């Protein structure tokens, strides 16, 4: 289990700015047919979420939340979400697990925090949680499936996944 907290302090901001959830060796610049430089990555969803987390504004103001999970070494996982209290709805914008601790189940731990945040709003039943997943991101699909989510529909280059709690 990680030690979770809200991102509120300049120290948190500093930890987020250097958070690494992908292998930098997997990234490179290529030149397209028009001579323009473009970024390419073996796992672009990791690169994109890492870039987002590196530039998150801290503190986040409710109904937006940035929750950070620490282990004995440092920042191990991050989840960013938004709550719509009166719609009994939560949108998970980003979930990321540090490269050094991947495959240890921390994504599931992060996803489960959505319920706890909704609980702060006294929403404990009849609510919906949504997230977007890259179709090639099998690790995310496994983590969200394990957390009770299901595929809803395609959404441009992404997939919509959701979970409803009666």
């Amino acid at each position, binding site marked *: 289990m990680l030690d979770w907290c809200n991102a509120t302090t300049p120290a948190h901001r500093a930890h987020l700015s250097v958070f690494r959830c992908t292998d930098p060796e997997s990234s490179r610049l290529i030149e397209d047919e028009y001579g323009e430089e473009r970024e390419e990555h073996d796992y672009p969803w990791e690169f994109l979420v890492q870039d987002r987390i590196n530039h998150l504004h801290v503190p986040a103001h409710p109904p937006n939340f940035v929750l950070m999970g620490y282990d004995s070494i440092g920042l191990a996982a991050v989840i960013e979400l938004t709550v719509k209290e009166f*719609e009994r709805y939560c949108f998970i*914008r980003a979930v990321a697990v540090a490269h050094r601790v991947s495959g240890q189940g921390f*994504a599931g731990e992060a996803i489960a925090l959505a319920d706890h945040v909704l609980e702060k709003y006294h929403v404990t039943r009849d609510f919906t949680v949504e997230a*977007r997943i890259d179709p090639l991101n*099998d690790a995310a699909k496994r983590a969200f499936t394990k957390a009770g989510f*299901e595929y809803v529909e395609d959404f*441009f280059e*992404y997939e919509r996944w959701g979970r409803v709690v009666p």
Partner: protein
Amino acid sequence: MKRTQQQEQPERRIVDRQSYALHAVALPSREERARIRAILRARAGLV
């Protein structure tokens, strides 16, 4: 979100920041939120 060692390496892909911003992390509209909620509730037999 992390890959595992068992996961096969997907084909290389361009990093599309615009699509990510618009389609992965942008909060859906109130109508879209209601629609997704209705789909999930219907699937769960809650309506």
